[in-house]
């Protein structure tokens, strides 16, 4: 028998997971960065105080990097409140999650720990192990010099080889070279222009400015050193500067990132490169769908391209990018796919944020197609008229489809700071937060907990399974085998 406390706990965990997936503490369309951060901070403090083990377990889910770093930090700050077995699990979860995070974010976390004076034995061990597992310490030392230095200092590390002198000895007082080629390149780059091109782009850029290297020449020659994202970000500017060798390979881009890139292009360019962009999006979607491709039957999707899907200047067109990603992923997952954009447009490539949010009417249009599944990707600000989507879905569920022939799921890419959750459309419709369109299959599965029909015991079992899979499995991006 479920107690009231269990139901509350299950609800709290779902709420927190939704927040941790969607909110990045940045400005959104309807709320500012301050509101987002304050609201999120409260949730973290609340979860840590009340459900410490569940709080740690969320590290195994597809929460965003911002929240993963926050959770790790809070767990380490309050290490002494944990029981010995909690510490064991937490330690492994943290180590696993840190391994999956992008290095700049981990270094930022370490700096935050140093600034907050968190320096318990566990923290030091975690920093030590993480640094030891880095594939190329010399590369990190060059690219994140200050951060590595501060982390080494904070964890009382003894660095081997050239790293110690590289980080801590003044560069100008050194006369002999380093044995590591990258460190040596860095030393020579101070006075030799050709050595600049052996360094990572962010470091080389500083030296290029120092030597006054022409931008076109610099971009042309640094091109092989660019990371995938740097390439994507720079290619427009590089083409304008005349450096044609900076070309992003769209085929390897993850789906949502690619969708955001497509939406950043002017409409004319999108139309001109239609074949290339569509092919890239389809490839990314097929990769994300994996073995599940074509297994979802008849799927209808209501996709939000109203003005609020612009997001904010900090998260430009993020909600729209998620919707566009979902469009192509669902196309890959479904046997038959019926996309319905709120604006009434039919060309997914040419969507831009404009107009109101008449969710109710679009949901009606979708239900008319009698789909097996209906997905709604929207920020939930139904305003033309307000609340109609909720009413339509409620009446549909209670009067017209009590047997759940059509499964309805609402995916919401925006955290509502005032409500401490993503905005819901109707109580009977499960709502899940979504950050990347690639997570859609796992989220749809997870959303059934939000319907209120499954209790804490089942949720705990699901989380335990996810934690086990996360700790043993190859990485957090791998999908869980079907079933809880």
């Amino acid at each position: 028998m479920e107690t009231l406390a269990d139901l509350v706990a299950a609800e709290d965990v779902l709420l927190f997971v939704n927040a941790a997936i969607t909110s990045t503490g940045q400005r959104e369309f309807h709320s500012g960065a301050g509101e987002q951060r304050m609201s999120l901070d409260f949730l973290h403090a609340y979860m840590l105080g009340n459900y410490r083990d569940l709080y740690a377990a969320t590290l195994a889910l597809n929460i965003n990097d911002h929240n993963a770093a926050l959770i790790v930090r809070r767990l380490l700050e309050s290490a002494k409140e944990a029981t010995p077995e909690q510490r064991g699990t937490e330690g492994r979860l943290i180590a696993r999650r840190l391994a999956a995070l992008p290095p700049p974010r981990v270094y930022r976390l370490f700096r935050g720990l140093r600034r907050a004076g968190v320096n318990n034995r566990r923290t030091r061990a975690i920093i030590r192990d993480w640094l030891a597992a880095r594939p190329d310490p010399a590369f990190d030392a060059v690219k994140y010099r200050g951060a590595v230095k501060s982390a080494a200092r904070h964890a009382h590390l003894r660095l081997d080889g050239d790293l110690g002198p590289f980080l801590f000895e003044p560069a100008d007082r050194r006369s002999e070279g380093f044995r590591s080629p990258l460190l040596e390149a860095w030393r020579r780059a101070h006075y030799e222009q050709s050595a600049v091109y052996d360094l990572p782009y962010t470091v080389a850029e500083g030296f290029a400015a120092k030597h006054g290297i022409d931008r076109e020449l610099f971009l042309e020659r640094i091109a092989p050193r660019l990371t995938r994202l740097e390439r994507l970000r720079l290619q427009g500017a590089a083409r304008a500067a005349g450096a044609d060798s900076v070309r992003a390979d769209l085929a390897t881009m993850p789906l949502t990132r690619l969708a955001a890139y497509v939406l950043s292009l002017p409409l004319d360019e999108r139309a001109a490169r239609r074949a290339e962009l569509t092919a890239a999006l389809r490839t990314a979607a097929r990769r994300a769908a994996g073995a599940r491709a074509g297994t979802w039957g008849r799927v209808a999707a209501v996709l939000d391209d109203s003005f609020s899907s612009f997001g904010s200047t900090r998260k430009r067109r993020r909600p729209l990018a998620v919707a566009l990603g979902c469009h192509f992923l669902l196309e890959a997952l479904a046997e038959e796919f019926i996309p319905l954009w709120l604006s009434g447009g039919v060309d997914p490539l040419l969507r831009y944020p404009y107009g109101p949010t008449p969710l109710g009417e679009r949901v009606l249009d979708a239900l008319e197609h009698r789909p097996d599944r209906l997905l709604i990707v929207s920020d939930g600000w139904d305003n033309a008229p307000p609340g109609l989507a909720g009413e339509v879905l409620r009446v549909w569920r209670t009067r017209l489809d009590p047997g759940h022939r059509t499964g309805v799921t609402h995916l919401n890419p925006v955290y509502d700071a005032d409500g401490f959750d993503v905005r819901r459309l109707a109580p009977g419709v499960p709502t899940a937060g979504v950050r990347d369109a690639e997570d859609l299959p796992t989220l749809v599965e997870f959303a059934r907990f939000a319907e209120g029909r499954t209790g804490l015991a089942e949720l705990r079992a699901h989380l335990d399974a996810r934690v086990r899979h996360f700790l043993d499995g190859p990485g957090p991006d791998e999908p869980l085998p079907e079933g809880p």
Partner: protein
Amino acid sequence: MTTTTTLELTGLTALPAQTWGAIRLVPLVRDEPIADLRLDARLYGDDLAAVALDRRTAYYAYVPHGFVATWTADGTPAAAYGTRLRREDERRADPPPCVSLRFHRRMARRVDRDRVRFLPLHLALEGYLALHFGGPAVVWEEWSHRAVSHGLSPRVEQAYTGAEVAGLGDALRVFEIHPGQCGVLLYAADALAAAFVVPHPDDYRALHPSLLHDLYGELVHHYATLHGPVPDFRARIADGAVSSLAGLRAEAARQRAEWADFHATALAGGLLEEAYQVQRVRRMGPFALSRFLPPFHRRTEQHIGETITHEDGRLAYLKTFRLSEHQVRRGHLLTRLAAADWNLGAAAGLLGVTPAQLALRIEAAGFGALLRQDVLDHYRAEARRDR
């Protein structure tokens, strides 16, 4: 030509409101835009190219009252004095009649030369009232100099720019403009603050942010500050009424129709059901520009404004200001004065007071500058003697 009539939003449909805090914005949508009357291209600022495309179809242009732009040849900013209706080819020939603004150096720097914005507050309002009552333009010119350099003295009332109205900036920012939207009704705590209608959706998109530079009475400011969030009018569908998907759709459509009806009668009733004195200012082609005055009933909702109507009855342009209680009282005073042909003695007779009392009342109402200094001094002395 003056007639008495009510205001009608012909050709416009009210769509569901969007709320933010205490502000409620009701979009007005046209089925078919009016293409042969467009915002003067110069007011588009950087977007001039967008209008240039339409030049072949745009036959007439209008300049809303109080919009500041570089009209004059020497590049100083000036404000349109009253809404203007012009033939498109007039545009190149002459600037519209306007009031040049003599800014201090400090203020002048702040003015982006080609940015569309409104007059300084009190200027706009006083000018508006004076304009409506045919107050002598010479005096108005004189005021603009005095008021800009010293502020209107004595200052008897306050008006607020939209930027000062709590939550209005955010409400306008998060408002999702409908396709085909040509107007908006703005409510603060469900009191109608302003109505704004333009002929074409492109004009609306260009002018939507200018609502923030618009001016609002103290009532609007206080309501927006003190009132909590207003509730949404959420859709409700009764369970029993629906047995099929088509039934559900019919119910949803009914919600829409009911809202438009409710809005016209309950929310906008104060604006639409009042009898206005309408004065036609100019007629051009199928369009007529008029100004309207409320009956100045004290302690009720009173709006003044300007309209451009097409001869087939469609409302092409509308802009209203909601008067505060002070302004209604002053409007009342001015109507009496105007009714007496600006003859002090006759007006005093109409109001049942002595001319001296009336003169002091005019001064107290902030229109002291309408009277010659020696005349005013004479009445002051008289009042002092009587005391």
